[in-house]
């Protein structure tokens, strides 16, 4: 009888005990970034309010080794519940370790743009994009005046770009910044040149691996890379110049007239407006040497896709909670803090950006509505981009030919995107 009473008391105690508190961990490389602090604080508060007793923890990861650490953690099933990633090749490499989110967050997904950077070949979305990333040209209005150009009339065609660079060359100034030590400038160049020169079908073929590096439209881009270098558009020493962040700092200091920059996170309108003054920074979409049949001459597109996003580890013991954390991180109210503090362009169309008083951003937002084109390099595989880094450096140095470079890139493409 005594034992029965004890057992009953124990059962009652267990029943009265609240469920064990759960912790959702997020790996992210921006945790120590001051401009992201409010965003994380609001996300944490919103999550913990929605799930009393549970916690949302952001763990800072080193940028340079992030994907190595993440890959090792996922392989040993010790990864975080929520995973941050850049859109494109890196995110697509990770999909085997994540759950698809299409059925989990349909209402949120309906309000997002920039999803293709996080969509796997199976057509499912594995990350929820929080920011948009795109490529535009930022220019120094003072230098435009110095070389005799109208600072309020940036080029809209390739002929005008050539004329602009001739003006800079005549004054012994670099027209564009070149920082290809890591090969990233070559990535940006690929997307900037493809934005008008490829048709929509060719962009789709590129993603599927049906358009090859040695095919005429892509080989023309490789040739332009060589020709513009030979024409003296760039400062010398580009192969030993670091892009992040030396190139952009040098541009801010007047190192060149133009720089291929970004829309979000780094090297974007807010950074340049702060460093150079709002009135001294201009922005325009990059014209391509040729204009494809379904593109518009004089109105270049803006390569645009998801910038960064959050996914859910399939081995997480708390998948539903992790999904909710992702939902909160991408929600309009929380994301608005990131937009205001760091100047990112949000992937959630419900975020209100009307309060941001920047002429540059207003122009960019206008182009995004009707001039967005795929980001060609984000639709390339990591192995192709790695080889393009190598070949672009050799091309700049004159150590290889366009044909040889295209053949080497074709070989890699055939390995990673085999055609049946």
């Amino acid at each position, binding site marked *: 009888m005594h034992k029965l009473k004890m057992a009953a008391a124990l059962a009652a105690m267990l029943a009265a005990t609240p469920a064990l508190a759960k912790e959702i961990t997020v790996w992210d490389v921006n945790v120590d970034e001051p401009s992201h602090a409010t965003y994380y604080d609001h996300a944490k508060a919103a999550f913990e309010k929605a799930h009393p007793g549970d916690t949302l923890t952001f763990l800072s990861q080193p940028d340079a080794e992030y994907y190595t650490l993440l890959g090792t953690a996922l392989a040993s099933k010790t990864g975080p519940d929520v995973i941050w990633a850049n859109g494109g090749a890196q995110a697509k490499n990770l999909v085997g*370790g994540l759950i698809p989110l299409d059925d989990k967050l349909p209402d949120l997904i309906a309000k997002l743009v920039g999803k293709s950077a996080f969509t796997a070949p199976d057509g499912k979305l594995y990350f929820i994009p929080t920011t948009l990333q795109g490529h535009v040209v930022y220019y120094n209005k003072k230098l435009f005046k110095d070389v005799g150009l109208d600072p309020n009339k940036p080029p809209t065609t390739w002929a005008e770009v050539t004329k602009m660079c001739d003006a800079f060359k005549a004054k012994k100034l670099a027209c564009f910044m070149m920082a290809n030590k890591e090969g990233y400038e070559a990535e940006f160049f690929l997307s900037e040149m493809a934005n008008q020169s490829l048709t929509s079908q060719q962009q789709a073929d590129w993603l599927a691996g049906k358009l090859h590096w040695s095919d005429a439209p892509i080989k023309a881009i490789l040739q332009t890379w060589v020709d513009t270098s030979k024409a003296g558009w760039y*400062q010398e020493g580009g192969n*030993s110049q670091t892009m992040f962040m030396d190139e952009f700092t040098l541009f801010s200091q007047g190192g060149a007239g133009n720089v291929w920059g970004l829309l979000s996170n780094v090297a974007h309108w807010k950074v340049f407006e702060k460093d150079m003054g709002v009135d001294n920074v201009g922005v325009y979409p990059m014209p391509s040497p040729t204009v494809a049949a379904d593109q518009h001459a004089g109105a270049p597109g803006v390569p645009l896709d998801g910038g960064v996003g959050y996914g859910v580890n399939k081995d997480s013991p708390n998948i539903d909670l992790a999904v909710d954390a992702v939902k909160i991180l991408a929600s309009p109210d929380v994301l608005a803090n990131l937009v205001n503090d760091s100047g990112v362009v949000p992937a959630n169309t419900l975020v209100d950006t009307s309060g941001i008083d920047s002429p540059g951003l207003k122009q960019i937002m206008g182009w995004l509505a009707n001039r967005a084109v795929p980001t060609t390099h984000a639709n390339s595989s990591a192995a192709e981009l*790695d080889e393009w880094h190598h070949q672009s*450096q050799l091309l700049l140095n004159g150590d290889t030919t366009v044909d040889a470079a295209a053949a080497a890139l074709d070989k890699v493409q055939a390995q990673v995107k085999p055609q049946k």
Partner: protein
Amino acid sequence: MTAKTTSQSTQGVVTRFRSRKSRRTEARVALLFLLPAVLLVLVFRIIPLFWGFGISLTSATSTSAGEFIGAGNYLRALDDPNFRSSIANAGVVLLSVPIFVTIPMLLAILIDQGVPGRAFFRSVYFFPVVLSSVIIGSIFSVALSFNGSFNALLKSLGLPAVDWLGRSATALPVTLTIQSWSTFGMGVLIFLAGLSTVPKDMVEAARLEGAKMWQVWWHVIIPELRPIIEFSTVITTIGLLTSMFGLIYVLTGGGPGTATTVPEYLIWSAQGRLNQPAYAAALSIILFVMTSILAWLQIRIMSRNANL
């Protein structure tokens, strides 16, 4: 008498038993002391080695275990131009070993001969050794960039600027020069230790016989240093093959092209950038075999010297 003999015999047996027991206890204690080291080697070296070899035979990625593909990754390495280039670069690195050994040896001999300011030079030469490769890489990245201080010096002398780290012809030699600068202090110390074992009377006798300085070096000091030269050659070779990653990562990122890509850098790239841990494991095994051959040579050289 018989009783005494029996007693002695019993005592002997007891002593032998006690001695055997004590030896066993001693062996157990010794094993206990060895256990942490053995466990560390086993857990962090031997098991990962076999584990890595197992992965190298699969098509694993960070998110999937993959399938067994036998020697597929090894065959791929043979067909990979980047791997072939990294091996060629490793060959160039190995060819530079005599420079890595000779410079510290000559400097150590000079210090040992009693040049003025000997203590100062000893500390100054050792200074770069305490700096991490990332710091050294960052310093030289700035100094050797196209608009850096070194090119400014060249321009002030009327010479043309060179993109030292961005040109295929100069990137690897410059990287090796920086590696040599950053490590030669340790070589100087090793040779100084070796020089302290060279008999002073032999050097004195040679001088009394009228030998010139270079003759003393060539016929007396350097032959006496032979075991140290061999030791330094082997550890320098292994060090160059397995510890240049940090410097290359910061200085050139393996480029331009693959001009400064060595096998260990390619391993990191396959794992960290391309999400190909199985291929990275195969490359690691190949590098392991290469360094094992060098280690075998080291053991052979050391045992030969032990018999001198």
